[in-house]
């Protein structure tokens, strides 16, 4: 396998982002997350702040409409631009890690795709969010619920299949069991077995 695309979907607080970053380092390939925002900002003339506002956000069905693949929703258009960007990167033969953006489905036609979903125990996720964002337990719990609901709506809106459904991914893993580094080790072994 000459091209490697690692798609990492994640629950909020599971450490999925850190895991994706570590995988990118271990395989020495770029990671696309915030970079997608700056790339699109540089190409379109929009500010990163403007794109950030609509990033990974589902459009409201009541105030948006689709006509022959066109949508009036800014959220939809930003999402489409990100999907196009990823598709073009994949078509160019580049190897990379991508965080979220429905990439496990949008890039599923590429042989080099390895799709992973990182989940976690609720208590572990809360502890992690409390530490990273320096917030009390109740706030962390609400924050996780809010973020996951948003990701789920975004994913299901664009893909039409359930976010986190194990049938969508090659591997679903609970990062709470082995910790971040242990999870990365397992994932690295799996990916190396895949690209042999």
């Amino acid at each position, binding site marked *: 396998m000459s091209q490697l695309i690692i798609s990492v979907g994640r629950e909020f607080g599971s450490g999925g982002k850190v895991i994706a970053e570590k995988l990118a380092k271990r395989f020495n390939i770029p990671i696309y997350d915030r970079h997608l925002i700056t790339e699109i900002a540089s190409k379109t003339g929009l500010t990163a702040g*403007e794109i950030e506002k609509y990033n990974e956000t589902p459009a409201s069905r009541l105030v948006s409409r689709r006509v022959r693949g066109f949508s*009036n929703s800014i959220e939809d258009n930003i999402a489409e631009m990100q999907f196009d960007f990823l598709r073009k990167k994949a078509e160019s033969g580049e190897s990379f890690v991508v965080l979220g953006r429905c990439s496990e489905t949008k890039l599923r036609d590429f042989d080099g795709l390895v799709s992973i979903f990182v989940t976690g125990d609720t208590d572990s996720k809360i502890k992690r969010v409390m530490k990273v964002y320096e917030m009390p337990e109740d706030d962390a719990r609400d924050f996780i619920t809010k973020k996951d609901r948003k990701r789920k709506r975004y994913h299901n809106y664009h893909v039409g299949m359930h976010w986190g459904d194990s049938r969508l991914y090659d591997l679903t893993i609970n990062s709470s069991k082995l910790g971040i580094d242990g999870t990365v080790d397992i994932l690295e072994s799996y990916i190396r077995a895949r690209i042999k």
Partner: protein
Amino acid sequence: MAAASIFAVIIFVAMFLLIVLDKIERHIVTLGCGALTLIVVFGICMRSGKAILGTLAVGDFFKKDFWYQVTESESKGINWATIIFIAGMMIMVEGMAKAGFFRWLCMKIAYMVKCRTIPIFITFMIMSAVLSMFIDSITVIMFLAAVTIELAQLLKFNPVPMILSEIFCANLGGSATMCGDPPNIIVGTSLGFSFFDFLTNTGLIAGICLIVSVVFFYFVFRKEIVTENGAEVDMSKFPNPSEAITNKKDFITSSIIFGMAVILLVSHSATHLTVASIGLFIAVITLISAGKDALSLLKKVDYKTVLFFIGLFIVVGGLEETGILEYIAQFIESISHGNVMLMIAIILWISALASAFVDNIPFAATMVPVIQSLASTSGVDISTLAWALSIGTDIGGSATPIGASANVVGTSVAAKNGYPIGWGKYCAKLAPATIIVLAISTAYIFVRYL
């Protein structure tokens, strides 16, 4: 009959909600609801094979009137004339787009006005309206918005005001003719109006409103559409319009076919050829002239829209057969207390308000039998009510970004190129313009027809 009416209303409301929610593709929604209407309303509740056959209206194809019509007649059930005409025009438009016609026209006009922004702004608004009189506004805006952005990047100006004005004028132009906007085709074919009837009624209203709109948008946007530093345009950097033509032979052929379509439509009340005949003829000659590319042209036809229409007409047929739409007509008559002015104002402004938020096609298809019933009970001329309905549904859609297909396509093309247009930015300029145009249209109808 009560059970049939209740089910017909439930199916219709469910269809409308599902279209608005946009979770399931709209052609699947209307076809599914259409099947339910046939089975539950006509089959189980009414046990009426006649209602099923009447709504499917397959027999229309074998009637001479369907293809060649000397006296005007009205249609019920699935409006096959609308469907054939729309499909035929889709095939023609695909042929024109493939040959590079639309891009060439936009570039040529920009070239002719020497790429000065204000003349481009004005000519593109007029071109948008004129093209939309004959071609679906989605295609018109798709090309106009793309060329506008290309010019904006080349000449360094903000394309958003220009795209917004083009969208508005496309919807306005669509209201001018029978084939400009789907509601007009439905109104025209259902009530037996000709292309010329529309042109001399809604066409005149649209013409007046276009002049007002051009002036309005000029004053609203004139400061936003100047080039950076007011720089002189270097025409040598501008791409040659002829580069847009992908194949000269196809370009000439598609231009001739388009010209023929316009002539046939303008003269159809004299030639007695129906829009169904014209649509079929245009489709056939486009496919013949395309030769080996005919199949690829056919594949590009938006068959989902065609299926959407079929399902929609069946659902509306359910309301019609069960007499629900007569109740709505009676309700409008009772709240207007027989006052014709109020009746027209209600039809025009309610149609406009509804079309600003929901698809104007199902709305128009539903309202046609309502105004028919209203005309027969109140004695008001059906044509006056038809013009009010057409203007309301066509122009009302301009008020919001989701009101009409052209709005969605225009704002989407802008957003994909880095110029997002949210509800606030859109409605700030186009909602007032819509209200002004609707007010002028209402006054015009009052003065001319009452």
